[in-house]
């Protein structure tokens, strides 16, 4: 009898079964574990208290990113509590033998940016991190998901996890994106359709012509925000683009061609069945801007702030009313009429070289509006160096953007980069929750090009009409 056709998810899931003890949740092997300073101290402390060690330190990689200052790295860290967390990570890595890309390291950066760029992320792997945006790594055909600190400790001690089997969800995007429309617009559009909990309990596999045509960095942007639709993970089957991206990177297998042969068997079999399928068309996507306090509260640039009364569901109406009040908006205001105080280009969603190139192309020859404070925070030391080699930093600084060191920065404002109460910000990050970028701050999520254009004009503009200089 021929084997039952399997999806990409099922192949990875089956291959990682360690054992299924009676009555217990089966244990699955975890190939790679990424660690940052924010969610790991209590896990290391747990190991220490129980007298345990890390089972496979060589499968574990750490970097400080959430708390780090993005200003001059030679200066001491001003906030003593942030400093303590970063020092704790340093000491833990030393004590437990974990490879750390420390603040002074040329390869330090946001954990989800450096994993792929160092080739730590590979197809077919199970990858976890104490961080919900671990789904980013799914762009390589890996099963990558965020876990809590107790599970971080579990993985450190056992290199396994017990998780219930996720359901599979194919999000197929046919057609092509129009010029000027980015992967960020696509994923915001999808979240708007799926809602913030449409993916709960599922792992999404993005398929279809529109997805295949995305480059690796764009695929990472899409997978990154799977969690914003509630999904445990997002993934895209590996293909030649995936292999080309990885070839020659630091941590890829020595026998790369053999690895490629193995990875080539990963894409789902013809006839494999998903638990759920939704189909969209890339041609329907226009530049997206969120107006509310969750990422599904999103509209096209040509739209207006909605009237809460137009939501059929009572909870949605209530959420929209609260969001409009928090965001200081009025129903019916055109998105293009919203004036901005701040612009943030960065985060694990949009801080890679192609994102910075897109933003720089828009900013080239322009000046940031006098009413706007704009900053660009590269995702990693490597991205920063590459951008500087290409002269992007000079385009940004000439236009009046601040050019910073790598880290999470104002994506969540755990470091000094925060919004003040009432400030309105165009941000390329992934969450517009109340207070996410600073207490009372108002976040609108957009693509890097839209953010750069908004910085120049002082309000949102339709990037499709931009006059490039």
């Amino acid at each position, binding site marked *: 009898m021929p084997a039952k056709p399997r999806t990409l998810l099922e192949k990875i899931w089956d291959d990682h*079964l*360690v*054992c299924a*003890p009676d*009555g*217990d*949740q089966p*244990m699955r*092997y975890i190939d790679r574990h990424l660690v940052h300073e924010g*969610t790991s*101290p*209590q896990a290391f*402390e*747990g190991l220490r208290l129980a*007298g*345990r*060690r890390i*089972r*496979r330190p060589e499968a574990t990689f750490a970097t400080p990113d*959430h*708390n780090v200052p993005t200003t001059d790295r030679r200066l001491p860290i001003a*906030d003593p*509590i*942030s400093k*303590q*967390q970063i020092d*704790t990570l340093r000491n833990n890595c030393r004590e437990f033998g974990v490879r750390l890309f420390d603040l002074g390291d040329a390869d330090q950066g946001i954990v989800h940016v450096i994993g792929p760029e160092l080739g730590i992320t590979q197809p077919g792997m199970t990858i976890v991190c104490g*961080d*919900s945006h671990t789904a980013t790594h799914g762009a390589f055909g890996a099963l990558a998901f*965020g*876990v*809590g*600190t*107790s*599970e971080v400790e*579990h993985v450190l*001690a*056992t290199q*396994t996890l*017990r*998780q*219930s089997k996720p359901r599979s969800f194919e999000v197929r995007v046919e057609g092509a994106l129009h010029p000027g429309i980015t992967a960020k617009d696509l994923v915001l559009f999808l979240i708007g359709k799926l809602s*913030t*909990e449409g993916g*709960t309990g599922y792992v999404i596999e993005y398929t279809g012509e529109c997805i295949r045509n995305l480059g690796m960095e764009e695929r990472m942007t899409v997978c990154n925000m799977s969690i914003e639709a*509630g999904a*445990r993970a997002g993934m895209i089957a590996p293909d030649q683009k995936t292999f080309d991206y990885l070839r020659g990177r630091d941590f890829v297998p020595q026998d790369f061609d053999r690895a490629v042969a193995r990875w080539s068997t990963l894409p789902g079999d013809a006839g494999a069945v998903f638990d759920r399928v939704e189909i969209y068309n890339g041609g329907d996507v226009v530049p997206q801007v969120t107006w509310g306090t*969750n990422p599904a509260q999103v509209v096209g640039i040509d739209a207006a702030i909605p009237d809460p009364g137009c939501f059929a569901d009572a*909870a949605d109406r*209530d959420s929209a009313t*609260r969001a409009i009040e928090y965001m200081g908006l009025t129903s019916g205001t055109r998105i293009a009429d919203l004036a901005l105080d701040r612009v943030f280009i960065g985060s694990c969603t949009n801080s890679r070289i192609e994102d910075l190139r897109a933003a720089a192309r828009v900013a080239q020859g322009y000046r940031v509006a006098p009413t706007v404070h704009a900053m660009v925070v590269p995702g990693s030391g490597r991205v920063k160096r590459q951008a500087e080699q290409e002269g992007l930093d000079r385009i940004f600084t000439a236009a009046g953007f601040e050019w910073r060191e790598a880290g999470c920065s104002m994506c*969540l*404002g*755990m470091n000094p980069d925060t919004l003040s109460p009432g400030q309105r910000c165009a941000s390329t990050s992934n*969450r517009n*929750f*109340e*207070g*996410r970028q600073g*207490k009372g701050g108002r976040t609108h999520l957009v693509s890097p090009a839209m953010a750069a254009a908004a910085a120049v004009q002082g309000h949102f503009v339709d990037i499709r009409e931009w006059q490039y200089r």
Partner: protein
Amino acid sequence: MEPFITHTGIVAALDRANVDTDQIIPKQFLKRIERTGFGQYLFFDWRFLADGSPNPEFELNQPAARGASILVARRNFGCGSSREHAPWSLADYGFRVVIAPTFADIFFSNCFQNGMLPIRLDEQDVDELLRRAAAAAKAGTNYRLHVDLPAATVSDDAGFSKPFQIDPFRRTCLLEGLDNISLSLKNVADITAWEAGHGLPPVAAAGR
């Protein structure tokens, strides 16, 4: 971990959907390197006014919610980040049960790791609980629920009684207060075998 068998407690009604982990525990409190002491920061930006005094409007500050240990909220509770600080702060504040129609996945599993029981009930049942809690508050009393994990039911003293679904493995872990890591380390031979089968070099000495 403290076992969870049955629990009777006062309900705090949080009539909101999509309560995210950034609200449950704002990021300025994530820098601590301990697991404890987070209760004082629970829902910080909603719970306190700019001058640091309690916000009288906020649900948890209502007299009826005083001493609450069961939180009832609307769907997609705990969405957002993976921070386990969210269940840590709820537990430290005194909550042992959270009831909602749906939960975000990572938050849901983080609860179990901390001896806290998240319960999914149908939207109509949550509606009913919120109604009963509101009626009690209006009458100047509080509203109590009983949670029975072996029977997997939620009930009150006025005829409400509903069963809930729970994964058998998770139920056992809660009932027995099991430490997952010790449990998993019993299968170390299987882990070693998997690694050998996948071409990984043997580890020098497995964790104790």
